[in-house]
């Protein structure tokens, strides 16, 4: 207690500090340095710089862990823990933020709402995600979650002139607040059960209580619904399609990738940590939720005509898949969650990026018909989209297959054969709607000849996502070993 802020604390916190600093700086610069709208694109590079610095800090932590051969560094009296898991997710967040920052400029400019604050919000949201992945204390986690969520509420509603954006923001906010009410109610019960807000202590308390304690159930259910809401699992998914559709597409990408990844980090921390003792309770529950998510996500996506909405439903089904890794629960399953989240971020962002590229001033470019004949006017986009869709569907040699591979393997290892069969069969269902997009892009005749948007940022972002989607598919080894070292046990 003598020293409130040790050097270890500092070392652990550096990435978050950098993110927050740069975030605030962006907000400041926005009206101090770059008052002209045209200058705002420089903010992108500033954000990139900030993310690079953060990356450096993360790398230092990673390096430290591997050199010292230790599993984790704990700081702030157990409030924050940097371990492989946290770092793994932070890399993902960083990549997602970078990509979103790169494409937001062009998109928002086209949409007529290019405000510099978005970059600040991106960085601050990333800061919130950092705490979600690294936090080991209920309060830290809750604040991190709310930080991220608030940034997203604002970003979703960023197109203030667009009613759909308003609506999406309202719905997302109200439901988000509602669900976090339940989440924090559950937290309060957890606190009441253990007398502590530290995850480790809660876990010990719950272990001693046994699984079927009614209060444990109370906490479990309320915490679960809060978490499942965040990852948009059925039946707590209903905000997702609306929010995804209404939000600016770049934000949708961030929402689908970054927010979901962070929520999964959070969810894993909770279920693998304090809630692990009552595994027998939540395993069947999550199994039902996972199957329901895959079912609803896949089936509802089939008849969608809005690509963003379609991808939203697909992301619901992907949430189901990822949950399966947790349900299996062994190392393969957890590794599967990590790998799946990793590839999911790249492929789903890539898909949204292509949709974003189709946005024009007078046209949203989100409809299936707007993609018709895309291959004729922008073959590069079309082929990248094909790769993303194949990956989303899980067709080798794309990254998505590697993710599915782990999920299926873990289910088989743990004897969840029925779930495995269901999960595999939904792959075939999924291909149906993914290929509606492919069909539109490659087979339907070109209807709209106006060129798709392009910018350096967009090209860079697509290059990164496309490359990663293929690379993880064809040569996954480094990523797998990274994930292997990042397991949460």
């Amino acid at each position: 207690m003598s020293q409130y802020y040790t050097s270890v604390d500092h070392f652990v916190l550096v990435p978050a500090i950098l993110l927050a600093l740069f975030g605030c700086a962006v907000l400041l610069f926005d009206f101090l340095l770059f008052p002209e709208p045209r200058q705002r694109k420089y903010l992108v590079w500033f954000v990139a710089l900030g993310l690079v610095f953060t990356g450096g800090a993360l790398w230092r932590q990673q390096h430290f862990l591997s050199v010292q051969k230790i599993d984790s560094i704990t700081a702030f009296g157990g409030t924050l823990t940097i371990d492989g898991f946290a770092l793994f997710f932070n890399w993902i967040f960083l990549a997602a933020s970078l990509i979103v920052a790169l494409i937001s400029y062009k998109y928002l400019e086209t949409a007529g709402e290019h405000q510099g604050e978005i970059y600040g919000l991106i960085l601050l949201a990333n800061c919130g995600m950092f705490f979600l992945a690294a936090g080991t204390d209920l309060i830290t986690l809750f604040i991190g979650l709310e930080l991220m969520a608030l940034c997203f509420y604002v970003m979703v509603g960023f197109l203030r002139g667009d009613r759909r954006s308003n609506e999406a923001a309202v719905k997302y906010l109200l439901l988000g607040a509602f669900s976090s009410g339940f989440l924090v109610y559950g937290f309060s019960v957890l606190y009441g059960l253990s007398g502590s807000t530290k995850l480790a202590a809660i876990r010990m308390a719950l272990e001693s209580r046994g699984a079927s304690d009614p209060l444990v159930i109370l906490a479990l259910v309320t915490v679960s619904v809060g978490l499942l809401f965040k990852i948009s699992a059925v039946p707590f998914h209903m905000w997702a399609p609306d929010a995804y559709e209404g939000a600016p597409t770049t934000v949708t990408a961030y929402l689908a990738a970054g927010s979901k990844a962070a929520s999964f980090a959070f969810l894993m921390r909770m279920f693998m940590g304090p809630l692990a003792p009552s595994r027998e309770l939540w395993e069947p529950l999550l199994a039902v939720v996972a199957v329901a998510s895959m079912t609803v996500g896949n089936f509802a996506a089939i008849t969608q005509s809005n690509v963003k909405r379609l991808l939203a439903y697909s992301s619901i089904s992907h949430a189901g898949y990822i949950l399966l890794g947790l349900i299996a629960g062994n190392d393969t399953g957890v590794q599967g969650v990590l790998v799946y989240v990793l590839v999911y971020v790249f492929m789903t962002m890539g898909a949204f990026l292509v949709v974003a590229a189709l946005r024009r001033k007078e046209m949203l470019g989100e409809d299936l018909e707007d993609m018709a004949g895309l291959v004729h006017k922008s073959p590069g986009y079309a082929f990248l989209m094909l790769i993303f869709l194949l990956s989303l569907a899980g067709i080798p040699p794309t990254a998505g297959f590697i993710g599915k591979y782990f999920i299926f393997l873990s289910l088989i290892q743990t004897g969840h054969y029925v779930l495995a069969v269901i999960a595999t069969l939904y792959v075939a269902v999924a291909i149906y709607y993914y290929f509606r997009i492919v069909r539109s892009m490659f087979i339907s005749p070109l209807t709209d000849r106006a060129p798709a948007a392009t910018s350096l940022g967009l090209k860079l972002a697509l290059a990164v996502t496309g490359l990663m989607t293929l690379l993880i598919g064809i040569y996954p080894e480094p990523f797998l070993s990274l994930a292997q070292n990042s397991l949460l046990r």
Partner: protein
Amino acid sequence: MFHPITTVHYLVLSAALLLVGTIGVLARRNIVIILMSIELILNAVNINLIAFSHYFQQVTGQIFAIFVITVAVAEAAVGLGILIALFQNKETVLADEVDLLKW
């Protein structure tokens, strides 16, 4: 009636308040009041936390409650901001008129 008040009483009260808040969220049309209902829910949480804090004789729960209040404030602020943005566009604050995005 005059038996001692235990933590459980507070928990029950909290749960009841949670319930009231939930009903408000589910049933009211006015979004402003829905936001108020969410405040009620968060208050229910706080009652819980304070009760446990008292029970454990520590301040952790109270600290948690402070953060919950902070979050409640932040959510209310942003929520009302978004509501204003919506109102500017749509001239309504009724939840069931916000249905542009569906299916």
